[in-house]
């Protein structure tokens, strides 16, 4: 068991190292200079002459150590991974990369974690029931629309929801994280306001992803209900509820648990799009802004954060899975 843990942790380190190396070099190929971007913006609003601008850029480049050879910078970068400190954001100086991530992460986590888990629960329950011969007929009728919506990307879904529920019917706010003028004080009214702003982004993520779970679960369910042990459970005189829960659902959920871990890894991709559409200040937005201005310390920080989170989740999954399925217990 200890050997397995060590092996997995080494693998985790390898994944993070290779991802971080690729990520280090890609932004450096870009022509966009983050410092120039920042000060060009300031220059446009007036204040200093173009000659001063070049000097300012030069001194900042020196200060951030960007004039040194790339190899030296790479070594510093590797050290900074171990220290979990990527220094200052180029574009949002004097904020540090850690500040940027910490500010954005609660928004993303609350939205994506919740929506992924909700669609996992709804989808799997609907899928399991729609493959179960004794389930009421309305379950299948209920599952079908979700399956049809599977092909619709979250952005399109978001635009449609915004148009109908937000713009036409004015039921829910059009965007942002909370209403303008509301003081973010942690009171119930504030929380309720934030929640209202989360409904449409959440719906646009959930509606499109439930169908996928329904389909994979239904396929799995059809296989499992033909298994001898499900039949024998009925021969034993067990009630339908017990057979469904302990024999059928328990076995269909095994592959779904792996799929859930994988899905949690890809949620950030949909976050970039959905957060952009709804103007939520989450990690997707932060990454998007960093890429636009080539603010590479922030890019590094966020990508490493995501890679680390997903890789850790995978390793964790490998230790949780034996609890679900005794057949793959390691010792």
């Amino acid at each position, binding site marked *: 068991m200890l050997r397995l843990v060590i092996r997995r942790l080494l693998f985790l380190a390898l994944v993070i190292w290779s991802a971080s190396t690729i990520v280090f070099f890609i932004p450096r190929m870009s022509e966009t200079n983050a410092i120039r971007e920042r000060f060009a913006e300031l220059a446009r609003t007036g204040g200093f002459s173009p000659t001063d601008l070049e000097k300012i850029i030069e001194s900042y480049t020196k200060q951030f150590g960007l004039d040194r050879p790339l190899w030296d910078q790479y070594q510093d970068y590797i050290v900074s991974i171990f220290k979990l400190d990527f220094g200052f954001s180029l574009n949002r100086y004097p904020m540090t990369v850690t500040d940027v991530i910490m500010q954005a992460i609660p928004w993303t986590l609350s939205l994506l974690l919740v929506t992924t888990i909700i669609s996992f629960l709804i989808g799997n329950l609907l899928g399991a029931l729609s493959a179960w*011969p004794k389930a009421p007929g309305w379950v299948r009728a209920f599952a079908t629309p979700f399956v049809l919506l599977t092909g619709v990307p979250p952005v399109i879904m978001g635009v449609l929801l915004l148009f109908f529920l937000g713009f036409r019917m004015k039921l829910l706010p059009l965007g942002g994280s909370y209403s303008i003028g509301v003081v973010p004080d942690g009171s119930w009214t504030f929380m309720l306001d934030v929640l209202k702003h989360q409904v449409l982004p959440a719906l646009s993520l959930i509606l499109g992803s439930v169908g996928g779970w329904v389909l994979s679960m239904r396929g799995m369910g059809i296989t499992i209900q033909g*298994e*001898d*042990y499900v*039949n*024998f*459970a*009925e*021969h*034993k*005189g*067990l*009630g339908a509820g*017990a057979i469904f829960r*302990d*024999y059928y659902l*328990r*076995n269909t959920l*095994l592959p779904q648990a792996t799929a859930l871990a994988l899905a949690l890894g890809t949620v950030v991709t949909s976050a970039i799009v959905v957060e952009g559409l709804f103007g939520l200040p989450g990690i997707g937005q932060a990454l998007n802004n960093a890429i636009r201005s080539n603010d590479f310390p922030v890019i590094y920080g966020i990508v490493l954060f995501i890679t680390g989170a997903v890789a850790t989740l995978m390793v964790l999954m490998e230790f949780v899975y034996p609890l*679900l*399925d*005794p*057949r793959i217990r390691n010792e």
Partner: protein
Amino acid sequence: MNMGQDQNPVLRVSNLEVTYYTDSGRAKALDDVSFTLNAGEKLGMVGESGSGKSTLALAMMRMIKPPGRIEGGRVEIGGVDLMSLSEEDMRQARLSKIAYIPQGAMNSLNPVTRIGAQLVDAIRSHGIKDSRAQVEERCVNALKSVDLDPAVFRMYPHELSGGMKQRVCIAIGILLQPSVIIADEPTSALDVVTQRQVMETIDRVKDQINAAVILIGHDMGLMAQFVDRVAVMYSGRLVEVSTVREMFTKPVHPYAAALISSLPNLENKGVFQGIPGLAPSLLRLPGGCSFHPRCAKVMDICKTTRPTTRMVQGNRLVTCHLYNEEA
């Protein structure tokens, strides 16, 4: 129908009929099946694949699934007709009155829960409110009675061999001391040594609880060693029910006779005798007696009139026109 045996048989199946409604037509999988069984008696059920043996087992458990339907008949255990029970009462009757030992013991246990849990839930689902320790003791005793170590209680199915899994299924079958046990080819996936041990186990636990056993299978050798009476099925009908000795020495139904003579024996080493033709499709059964196209003793009446089951030579059941006048 009186079988001339015990007047109070533990199991009485009468006129059981099952039809499968398929897209290509109706298939009568069980046609007017009647027999009785006494406590402690062992009946072997043989026949070609598709002759209705497993359908009979499922019908007796009332577990025929659509497109199949039980069209009629009675299955009485201790005087109670299972067919007239409510769904809930039938569920309770499974395992407590009539138990089933499955064909595919390899996969008949839930792979993700412990053996113990799979014995305990069988007991608990029958409304038994004993303490945890009592229920566990009962399960461990059942495991012991099939020669399994009590440690099996805490093991998972993948930690057991095929023979051990089959024993677990037998232990589950006898947990609630049913009066009838149906064993559907319980040894077909096992090697011959394990086969014998499993059959001996079934024999012993049957004696302990004085249950009647129906053994379904193809293996005539196994039948000869193990059962008291043999029932032969052909295209959904019971064509002959006789004691083992009678069946193997002088079978009365032409199909049973052909089946027996097709067995290899020591006198005619190397000479195999098959039954001409193929078993008919249930969707297109020949008129009259469904065996007549393959029958060596076919008469005119066989092509037009469906034979009825009658009693011959004291207590043998046969469904054949040859015995019309004997009844």
